[in-house]
């Protein structure tokens, strides 16, 4: 009987003028307020107010796109603090890695988290693409969202690849050398593309600066723009698809 209830506190908080100016709806006790939570919020209103119950099942999408997005968010959250400790110049870039290792509080953890999240993001983006393909979720009206997905996959690969050079260790230098040597093989424009990418004829300080700007500004902004279109179109096209109704999914349907 002597339980402490926070309800009066919440009621008081919700009644204050400041709270009312930020959140215009009441507590989530009614469906009307549950709807308002979604469509009065800039970030949540990429969702409809109601979703098909079936789409919440794990096997519907395996949440692969969600894991990819979670990685992207985590990569921004760890990437920005990493930028505070990083200079895109030779040899300071490599020394900054050592600073992260020996001087910066939790520097190793921050770098590790950024690295593994990047690998996971590339991996789950691939898996997400395969899931969409095998479920036939590229079919009309979702054709163009599939194309945007391919663009997002390429942007993800480029993000990972440009980040690979930044530690300026042997792994980074030669990994990027091998990759950009492949670009050189393109007929006619290969050499020019490589020169443009590296700011020279070999991987050097200019390349490091270019990859840094691409990695921290150009590609993340590109990712954000295409992600926005990707999510908006998911909603416009009727939500996540999952197993198609007419093929293998029909067994699943019969079971429910």
């Amino acid at each position, binding site marked *: 009987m002597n339980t402490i209830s926070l309800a009066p506190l919440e009621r008081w908080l919700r009644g204050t003028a400041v709270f009312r100016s930020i959140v215009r709806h009441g507590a*989530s006790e009614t469906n009307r307020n*549950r*709807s308002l939570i979604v469509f009065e919020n800039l970030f949540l209103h990429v969702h409809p107010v109601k979703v098909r119950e079936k789409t919440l099942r794990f096997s519907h999408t395996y949440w692969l796109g969600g894991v990819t997005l979670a990685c992207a968010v985590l990569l921004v959250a760890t990437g920005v603090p990493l930028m505070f400790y990083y200079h895109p110049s030779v040899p300071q870039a490599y020394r900054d890695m050592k600073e992260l290792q020996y001087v910066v509080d939790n520097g190793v953890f921050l770098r*590790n988290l950024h*690295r*593994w999240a990047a690998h996971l993001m590339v991996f789950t983006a691939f898996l997400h693409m395969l899931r969409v393909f095998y479920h036939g979720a590229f079919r009309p009206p979702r*054709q163009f969202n599939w194309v945007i997905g391919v663009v997002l996959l390429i942007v993800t690969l480029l993000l990972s690849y440009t980040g690979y050079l930044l530690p300026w260790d042997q792994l980074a230098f030669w990994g990027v050398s*091998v990759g950009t040597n492949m670009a050189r093989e393109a007929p006619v424009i290969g050499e020019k593309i490589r020169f443009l990418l590296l700011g020279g004829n070999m991987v050097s300080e200019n390349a490091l600066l270019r990859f840094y700007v691409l990695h921290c500004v150009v590609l993340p902004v590109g990712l954000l723009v295409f992600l926005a279109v990707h999510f908006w179109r998911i909603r416009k096209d009727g939500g996540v698809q999952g197993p198609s*109704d007419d093929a293998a999914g029909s067994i699943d349907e019969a079971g429910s």
Partner: protein
Amino acid sequence: MSTLPPLTAVESNDPVGTPRRIALVRPDTRPSVRRTEERYVMTFPHLILREVILFQVVVILLSLAALVFNAPLEEMANPVETPNPAKAPWYFLGLQELLHYFPPVVAGVLLPGLVVVALVVIPYARVNLTAGPFWEGKGRGTSLTVAGIAAALFLFLAAFRCWAIAIPTLLVTAALFAARGTQGPGFRGALSRLSLPQWIMTWFVVVATVLTVIGTFFRGPGWSWVWPWLSVTHP
């Protein structure tokens, strides 16, 4: 003079209830409106909470990984000291492995370019939209054609000594024939429901995985074959 009944607003708090709707649906309309008997739930809390939990699980698992495994950091970059082998990041090692078999223009430019083009055109190719299970209604002629194409592909790859693609190609072909005439549940039943585009994608995924695994674990100095459990890569 008759009086109209008073207008009342009914607010339902059934979290999975759906109001009755009347809609005119054209046959070419979006698939989401074709189904009528679907259960809907409120996005908040059902979906939003799941998304929050998903995010937390990802953050926790990656944090644990970050505590246990350190990101690699080697010596400072040295342009005059080439490591042997010099490897690209893992997602490009399939391509690097291809370079071992084919000329650089083919392995480094032509094939990756074709893969990107093939991915982009998937939703616009009619075969991807209409194809049913591959063996459905197919006769002996199809079997011979499939066997012929697989044999030609195998011989072409064998001519380049490209066993890393030739052998997976044979295995996928074997699975294709194993799926013939089967149905129902189980793994073979699932295989029998794959359409031609899905078989092609399966072949691509198997080949890409084999190439990436070989490039990552089985290649040593001079891109020679090594067994990962025998070699010491970091002296």
